[in-house]
């Protein structure tokens, strides 16, 4: 379904993924008048593609309508900086209108043993809280905003509730979050049409390294272990001399008396 726009080259490329989050519409996506995606189904996330850095006019039309077809949604002059990792999301606004939102994905490196989770509100729904294991982790998230956190890796039982309530609108869903990765969770669909869903994008390679390898707590095996041996033996010898001296002193004192 993907059609290359232009040969990608060098460091001036960006990594671009596209998520289709508008229910009930199979579409074609055009970038600068050229077909980028065809027969793009709702709920689909493309594999990341390398695109030359630059400025793009994006247009989404009903499948087979062609580049001059009526735009379901469009976004002009979308900046795609070199080296960036971007996800363009076709989604509904909070009032239910189709929109295109480009997000720059945080792929900065993580501390060792951590994972990054980003949540994005791309649904026709009011503000929500995202909970993990029943506890709100991200609160008052509004369309089309995103929130991010560094967490311990593992499997999270996540759900989405209307902000400040216990009214579950999506989930619970089991979400596996791997160490060193950025996991992006999109809420998409429409609350009114009761077709809210989650889409998940995982980007790996942000892992850090442990900041040290502790290798001993005793010091017994130290290469300088010989020094304490010397010191202790000298101390023993000195003590021996001192004791003898003290005995001598006592005897002398006794003799004088």
């Amino acid at each position: 379904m993907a059609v290359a726009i232009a040969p990608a080259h060098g460091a001036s490329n960006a990594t671009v993924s596209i998520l289709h989050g508008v229910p009930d519409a199979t579409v074609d996506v055009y970038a600068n008048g050229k077909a980028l995606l065809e027969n793009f189904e709702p709920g689909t996330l493309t594999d990341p593609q390398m695109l030359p850095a630059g400025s793009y006019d994006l247009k989404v039309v009903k499948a087979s309508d062609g580049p001059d077809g009526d735009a379901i949604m469009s976004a002009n002059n979308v900046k795609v900086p070199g080296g960036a990792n971007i996800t363009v999301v076709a989604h509904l606004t909070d009032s239910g209108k189709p929109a295109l939102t480009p997000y720059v994905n945080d792929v900065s490196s993580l501390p060792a043993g951590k994972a990054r989770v980003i949540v994005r509100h791309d649904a026709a729904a009011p503000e929500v809280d995202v909970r993990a294991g029943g506890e709100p982790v991200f609160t008052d998230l509004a369309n089309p905003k995103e929130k991010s956190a560094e967490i311990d890796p593992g499997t999270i039982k996540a759900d989405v509730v209307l902000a400040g309530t216990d009214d579950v609108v999506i989930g619970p869903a089991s979400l596996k979050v791997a160490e060193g990765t950025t996991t992006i969770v999109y809420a998409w669909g429409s609350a009114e049409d009761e077709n809210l869903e989650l889409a998940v994008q995982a980007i790996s390679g942000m892992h850090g390294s442990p900041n040290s390898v502790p290798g001993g707590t005793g010091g017994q095996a130290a290469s300088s272990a010989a020094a304490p041996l010397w010191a202790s033996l000298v101390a023993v010898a000195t003590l021996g001399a001192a004791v003898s001296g003290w005995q001598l002193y006592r005897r002398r004192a006794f003799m004088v008396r």
Partner: protein
Amino acid sequence: MFGQQGGRRWLTALLVSCLVVMLAGWRLAIATDSGSGQILPASASAPTREAHDRSPIAPPTSPDAAISRGPERLSGSTTRAATQSRADKGEPGPPRMLAIPRLDLKMPITAVTVDDTGAMAVPTRPSEIGWYAYGPRPGSASGSAVLGGHVDSREYGVGPLVELKQLRRGDDIVITTNRGTERFRVSTIRLIGKRDLDLRDVFTREGKPLLRILTCGGTYRRSGGYQANVVVTARPV
């Protein structure tokens, strides 16, 4: 008369002291002799504390950096034929046991991650060695599989990893996984100051497949502990 006896006691005490000090020196000499040949290059065998702190004890780029400069051993060559290529074997299982036959060393391996400070969470007991479970497994197609353990512990004493310094290039290392065995041959043994250790390189998940075994070495300070890591690098055979 008492005074004379006292004088003899002084003399005896002095002689005993001298004897003890001489004995100590003798023991030290033995310890140094048996160790220096394999443990450390001459320049690093008796460094000042300052030298330990400020400069890499053995910079990895220098050919002199290898702790061991023993001859290439050939005894492990018989294992080569028995080892299948990676493509035939698929992804290895998690490692369970470390064995270094020449040193008569065997240690159980436990999967570890990082502690609250971001350090590798090596096992508390020096009798066990940890495998960094977020990184590659020993025998994976790429990247460094890292094992790390305490050389000693205030509580449990000195562990088997004190022997790592005796390794020589070419020594065999056998890792038992829960799917079979992975064989490696030692290529370098280095003592690297903690500040100079490139942990990104040690823990890399990319590039050629390597096994790395780390423990502590160098001088030990009451505050700050060991000042260096012993880093053994081995390649799959």
